[in-house]
């Protein structure tokens, strides 16, 4: 996550997902933003907070096998640049989605619910908590 170009790629992929939803004529702009926000948060929740271990064998005798990707990031150092970036993006997406849905009540419930889904596990107090 901290290697060169990863953050740009991440933003491009989120923009691409949004563009795919915008390209579906039967979806309104508001719905496209809410879908982008919710699906992004669900994917990131699975990738960062559900998946454990590494997708390849490592030489650490399984030390990180039961740690989530988020807990393994930057060797567990809290508030590293990558962690800050991965925390800020969902928040910005939430603001954008709220703005484009004109703060509609139903959209707000889905958007805020999915935002909490990805923010709460990122709290340092929940590091390693199951």
């Amino acid at each position: 996550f901290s290697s060169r170009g990863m953050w740009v790629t991440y933003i491009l992929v989120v923009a691409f997902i949004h563009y795919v939803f915008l390209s579906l004529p039967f979806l309104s702009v508001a719905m496209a933003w809410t879908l982008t926000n919710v699906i992004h948060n669900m994917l990131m929740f699975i990738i960062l907070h559900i998946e454990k271990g590494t997708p390849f064998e490592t030489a650490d005798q399984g030390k990180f096998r039961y740690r989530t990707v988020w807990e393994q990031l930057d060797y567990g150092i809290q508030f590293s640049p990558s962690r800050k970036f991965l925390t800020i993006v969902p928040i910005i997406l939430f603001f954008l989605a709220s703005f484009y849905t004109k703060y509609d009540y139903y959209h707000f419930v889905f958007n805020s619910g999915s935002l909490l889904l990805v923010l709460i596990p990122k709290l340092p107090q929940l590091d390693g908590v199951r």
Partner: protein
Amino acid sequence: YQYLLITALYMLESWERTVFNCFLLFFLSMATYTAYVFM
């Protein structure tokens, strides 16, 4: 060949390439249509 290499389709099986290309075509046509309607 460059397209296959850059998108890593070079490593995928033929059915996977078909799925990817169909998705890409679908997305591009949708984008074109929506852009047209929007404009």
